[in-house]
């Protein structure tokens, strides 16, 4: 009743974003924007001026921060740092590749699906069945 544990306990976590301006604007409207005391944000807007190094740094920062549970990354941005995204295999934060305005979602590039892809090969399943 009144003593029910509140949902927002210590394990409440943030959603980080690395995406284009419109996607970030939309999610900020949905209330996920967070700015800490050092004025560090939980998002990175990627435009034509953003360098791969900046994306890499943001990805590394978001995936090591303990207060982040999900990192949303536009798939075309993930393709720019594919080696980092594919080599990441921790359960938290979960990396979710999302579509962007100019680049629709392509399952063939999704890091999760490419990790599990080899099971779809009929040969690997069939050889196991013999």
């Amino acid at each position, binding site marked *: 009743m009144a003593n029910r544990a509140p*949902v927002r306990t210590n394990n409440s976590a943030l959603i980080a974003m690395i995406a284009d301006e419109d996607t970030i604007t939309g999610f900020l409207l949905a209330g*996920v924007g967070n*700015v800490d005391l050092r004025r560090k944000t*939980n998002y990175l807007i990627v435009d034509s001026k953003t360098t791969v190094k900046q994306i890499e740094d943001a990805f590394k920062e978001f995936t090591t921060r303990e207060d982040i549970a999900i990192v949303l990354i536009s798939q075309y941005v993930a393709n720019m740092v594919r080696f980092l995204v594919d080599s990441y295999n921790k359960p938290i934060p979960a990396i979710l590749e*999302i579509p962007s305005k100019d680049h629709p979602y392509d399952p063939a590039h*999704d890091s999760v699906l490419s990790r599990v892809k080899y099971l779809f090969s009929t040969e690997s399943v069939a050889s196991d069945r013999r």
Partner: protein
Amino acid sequence: MEKGEDAELQSSNHERDANVLEFMDSTDSYLVLMNSLSSSLRQGWLELASARHSMGASRISSALFDLKSHSAATTLQLNHQIAGPEAEKLHFSLCKWASSESPKSCSEEAKFEEEDKLLQRTSNSPKVLDQDGSSNSVQEEAPEATESPRTVEDQARKERLKSLSMFGMLVSPKLRAAQSSFETALEILVEVANKRADLLDAYDQVREKMESATK
């Protein structure tokens, strides 16, 4: 002996089939969810573009983002569910529009608290009637009255307005529509995250079975 071996083989095959089915099922759900995420994001971008068209490009831009220190109104909660003797399952749930003034409750959880409180209030109602005349009872009632279901809606509305207010006080209805589309997208994203965890779990199990079978 042969019958026993056959039964064992059959049950292990059955288990493996179940794992493969679970894996295929979660992969399918993941793809379906990604599809609905795409359409909800598309809707959001369209509404954002319409809002930008009616309000002007300079009024909806990243230059207006709130860079003052503030905490997120919508956060995630992580639950660790025990799925087996050694397995632990991750579950993400969304905590929407928690008030920045009272960050201890979010609107979804607050709804349940409200139901509890309403139940409590109805069971306490005769007592309340008895003490109706005393000033103490009025004071005791006051904090409960502030937590009415309306307050929960008000809190969410207030927080929604707060995030809209970075683009001005009078915003286009299209911007509100975009906000709601992105909220839906966020709900789908949390489902995607959960499905992703299920998918990787099922994948690990199938791979384990395959490896043990080849040994």
